[in-house]
């Protein structure tokens, strides 16, 4: 029984390292979700059902969701601003041709 626990602990260590070494943030969210799930499995093994329930809902759902919301807000602003400057430039280009 302790060997199962040791195996789960090693899996937690490896997943934590994988989360840190993933450089692309969108892929890191997936790794974070997996890490949260493995931590919940470890809490379940440690006979802590309350903490495992908390970790499943937060670490596998709420925490990746928060990161995704932040990323989507940054991306939305960037693409919306770029689209607006493109529209402005094309309008000014058209007006310049008219004057000529």
């Amino acid at each position, binding site marked *: 029984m302790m060997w199962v626990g040791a195996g789960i602990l090693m899996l937690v260590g490896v997943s*934590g390292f994988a989360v*840190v070494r993933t450089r692309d943030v969108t892929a890191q969210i997936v790794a974070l979700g997996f*890490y949260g799930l493995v*931590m919940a499995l470890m809490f379940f093994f440690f006979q*802590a059902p309350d903490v495992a329930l908390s970790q499943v809902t937060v670490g596998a759902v709420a925490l990746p969701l928060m990161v995704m919301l*932040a990323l989507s807000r940054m991306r939305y602003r960037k693409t919306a601003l770029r689209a607006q400057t493109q529209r402005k430039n094309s309008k000014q280009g058209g007006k310049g041709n008219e004057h000529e």
Partner: protein
Amino acid sequence: MPPHMELLPYIVAGWLFFCGLYGIVTSRHLVHCVICLAVLQTSTYVLLLGIGYRLGGSAPVFADISPGKVVVDPVVQALMLTDVVVEAVVVALMLALVVKAYEKSGCIDPKDLSTLRG
């Protein structure tokens, strides 16, 4: 119990702490930095729950077992419970700071943020 397994959860906790710190130091994206901070926070859960575990003990919920049986330590679990939920909202606060910094300066690399503009 084999001697090399006596300190396993504490070693894994120290390893996770070191990994999180390594991620923060070598980070090139602010959101990556915040996620590594979250990993750092989870290392403390492993340490505390490793201390409270008892071989052969069951969960400290007496809904279906009689109140005399051997259970694991409930005090450390109570400390962890609130911490896990509060961590998510504090990460949301740090990400709000990151979003604001990105909007003001336009760069996402921590190195570029350190130049003061006159």
